[in-house]
């Protein structure tokens, strides 16, 4: 099965699940809802995407949501040039999502990092604690837009 048909098969299976599917350059993008996330993940696993590359959170303060983007990948020859991208939007003030550890085991560290950096709570993750930041970190999650980093100009005025 060449790459083209593979993409078509992916497209049909995901549209049957009632999620929005679009294909970009070698990326199958799935816009899922928090409830259907687990179904999409299990479907992706059965299709061959057996591990996660990244769990990424993007903070959209304008429409008050945090978008969690999962990228799944597969090492077998026909799927390796494809990337599966699952986008889920969660409310910004109380971002909660279901942990996908039993579908993709290597999510255990990725979820910790996204929780730490953006405050998205993954229910079911047994050890959700700080990974990169120091354990006593109490300020708001740093990758949120309202965590300001001090900027610098290019001018220095002499006497």
């Amino acid at each position, binding site marked *: 099965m060449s790459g083209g048909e593979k993409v078509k098969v992916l497209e049909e299976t995901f549209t049957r699940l009632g999620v929005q599917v679009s294909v970009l350059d070698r990326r199958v993008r799935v816009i899922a809802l928090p409830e259907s996330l687990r179904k999409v993940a299990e479907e992706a696993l059965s299709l061959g995407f057996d591990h996660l590359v990244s769990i990424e959170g993007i903070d959209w303060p304008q429409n008050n949501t945090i978008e969690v983007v999962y990228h799944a990948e597969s090492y077998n020859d026909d799927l390796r040039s494809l990337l599966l991208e699952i986008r889920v939007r969660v409310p910004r003030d109380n971002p909660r999502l279901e942990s996908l550890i039993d579908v993709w085991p290597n999510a255990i560290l990725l979820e910790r990092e996204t929780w730490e950096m953006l405050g998205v709570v993954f229910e079911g993750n047994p050890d959700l604690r700080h990974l990169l930041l120091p354990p006593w970190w109490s300020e708001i999650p740093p990758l949120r837009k309202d965590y300001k980093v001090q900027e610098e100009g290019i*001018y220095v005025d002499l*006497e």
Partner: protein
Amino acid sequence: MSEPIESFGKHLKAIKTGLKYLISPNRITVYYPEEYIELPTGYRGLIRYYPEKCIQCSLCAMICPAGAMKMYRTREDKKGRPGVNYQRCIFCGFCVDICPQNALEMTKVHDVAFKQLEEMIFTPEKFSQEPVSPVVAEGAKKLKTVIDEERGLRHEPA
């Protein structure tokens, strides 16, 4: 220790390799203060500023990734002239590559040492003097690196 005979042979081979290099070592040490390596053309060392070519467009300060290049303005000249802060400079050469007038150029000097931190901030005047390597000033022997099939890196008097 399975198949001891064969592993004993391998022990001897490892010791033989060690002895081979004990007898004819291929050292790559350069005795730095007495000798120094002559660097290839285009080496990205300390930067030299030519005020007469500069059109004060401040592109170099805008592109500097480390925020090392700043435009020093005075009351009379509002546009300001570039000065570099070597505490931050990462020698990436972006400023040299974006300058439309070639007013910035990278020299081959890389081993300048500073006694205080403040000395590392080059105001435009200090920035326009040619940096001098202390080792060259003392007249150390100049070597050039040669890649050689037998011994890897070798240094010959340049």
